[in-house]
């Protein structure tokens, strides 16, 4: 049973067709890699699934519900969390507060409850605080909980974004180049963490990534895009030996 099914997605910006009739599906518990040279349309697909961009044609079903046309916060409510290629943290907030924003739907703050400090929202806030600390611990940032997010080094900012996304208790996690800018050791640690996220939290993962070592080692299946079109799909071994994939990457590198 597919958790997410995208069918014949087409997205264009003016006359540029960024994504052309691309279909992909994720099964529950799977880690699917989405790769391709720069400009292949990977991030565009993320932004369409999460409601940031509109698609011109196609359909995206999440748990058999059509989600194309929903706004980003509505997609998040259904249990789809994401991180961003160019890290989007709340820089001036402490780490703990950043993760707490991920519990927004659970805290459900209301004007009266907040202004009058009613007990029920205050209790939900306390619970979320405890869970946020646990999530910071899960990604290894618990000792920095009170620090400002923009004071963190790059690699830890990526981990913080991950913790915030996990606070939504997502069914599906979309990661946009989580290893970009990370050291070798940090990339290894990230791979371990992503495996734990799947195994211990039961989260399905769609991974856009340029770091091939991570993609090949982690993903169950891989979808390859080039110039907005799907050129290959299958196991890491199969994709790696696909001449069209080799051609796309060599062509891009040779340019």
């Amino acid at each position, binding site marked *: 049973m597919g958790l997410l099914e995208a069918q014949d997605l087409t997205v264009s910006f003016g006359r540029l067709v960024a994504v052309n009739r691309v279909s992909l599906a994720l099964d529950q518990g799977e880690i699917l890699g989405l790769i391709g040279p720069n400009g292949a349309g990977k991030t565009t697909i993320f932004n369409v699934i999460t409601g940031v961009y509109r698609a011109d044609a196609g359909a995206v079903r999440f748990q058999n519900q059509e989600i194309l046309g929903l706004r980003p916060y509505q997609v998040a409510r259904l249990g789809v969390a994401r991180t961003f290629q160019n890290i989007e943290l709340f820089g001036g907030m402490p780490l703990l507060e950043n993760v707490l924003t*991920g519990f927004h739907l659970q805290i459900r703050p209301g*004007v009266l409850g907040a202004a009058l400090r009613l007990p029920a929202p205050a209790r939900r806030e306390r619970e979320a605080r405890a869970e946020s600390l646990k999530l910071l611990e899960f990604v290894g940032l618990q000792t920095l909980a009170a620090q400002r997010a923009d004071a963190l080094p790059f690699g830890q900012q990526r981990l913080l974004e991950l913790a915030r996304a996990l606070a939504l208790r997502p069914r599906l996690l979309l990661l946009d180049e989580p290893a970009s800018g990370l050291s070798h050791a940090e990339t290894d640690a990230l791979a371990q963490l992503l495996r734990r996220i799947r195994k211990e939290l039961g989260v399905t993962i769609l991974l856009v990534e340029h770091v091939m070592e991570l993609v090949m080692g982690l993903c169950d299946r891989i979808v390859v895009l080039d110039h907005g079109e799907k050129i290959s799909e299958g196991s890491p071994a199969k994709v790696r030996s696909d001449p069209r994939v080799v051609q796309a990457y060599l062509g891009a590198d040779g340019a």
Partner: protein
Amino acid sequence: MKRVGLTLVGALIFVALPFLVNNYVVYLSNLIAINVILAIGLDILTGWTGQISLGHAGFAAVGAYASGLAILHLGMPFWLALPLAALFAALVSLVIGFPALRLSGHYLALATFGFGEVIQLTIIHAERLTNGPRGLWLPAPALGPLKLGTDRSLYFLIIPVTAVLLLLAWNLSHSGMGRALLSIRMSELAASSVGISLPRYKTLAFALSAFYAGIAGGLFGALVKFLDPGAFSVWQSILYLTMIAVGGMRSISGAVIGAALLTLLPEVLGGLQSYMELGYGVLLLTFIIFIPEGIYGRLGATLESWRSRAATAPSGA
């Protein structure tokens, strides 16, 4: 215990102050408190949520005229007219906010500027209701049999109302609600990715800040007992923005400092009043460019560095 002591001292000062100073100072205290309410409300929208309004004098006008007219023509008691007028201002903000908040940045500022002008023009032209540019005289407000005719008696209404509104705003900002608003200012993309509805919270911040402006307007009418459309011009809206920029955004103390300074400034400058608007503009730009954290923020940072220097000095010497 220390807290109880401080509260007692504060309460004592509050009760004694109006009898220790002359009437003019009491009047100024009232005016400062009214501007504090407005500044705090604007801070919810601009400081916390990052949406700039150039139309808050319009919401103050709605609160002032709605409560004044309800008292004059409907015979509504003041205690009821004031919150209802503020709710009305919030309602008006929803009507204009719904389309306007889809705009962002400068476009929202422009839309709110237009709104302020529309309100002012409406007041000028709805002469049969508002008496137009000639202005509207209001009776002294009364709470039941208690007539609040003097600035001293109004002081005991305005200051507690201000204190309560400050407390509510403080609670609000230190809750998941405040966090949601702040997250929108910092990154709309990230905020919506965790399920925070931008339209909902922007509209809410707009309505809350219009409510505060409405209360301020209603109290202003009670204080000066004369409303004219000139008192609610765009300059006034810019003055409110200057208050929170100068005092320091996202802090109650900052709003209080800013409101106090900019209420007192024209009183001190006296003869230079014709240059006031220029002065506000220069102040606003200076603070936004050179001291974006405002007086309170700068003060806090300075104190912090002194403290850490004092802490490290002995070991360093």
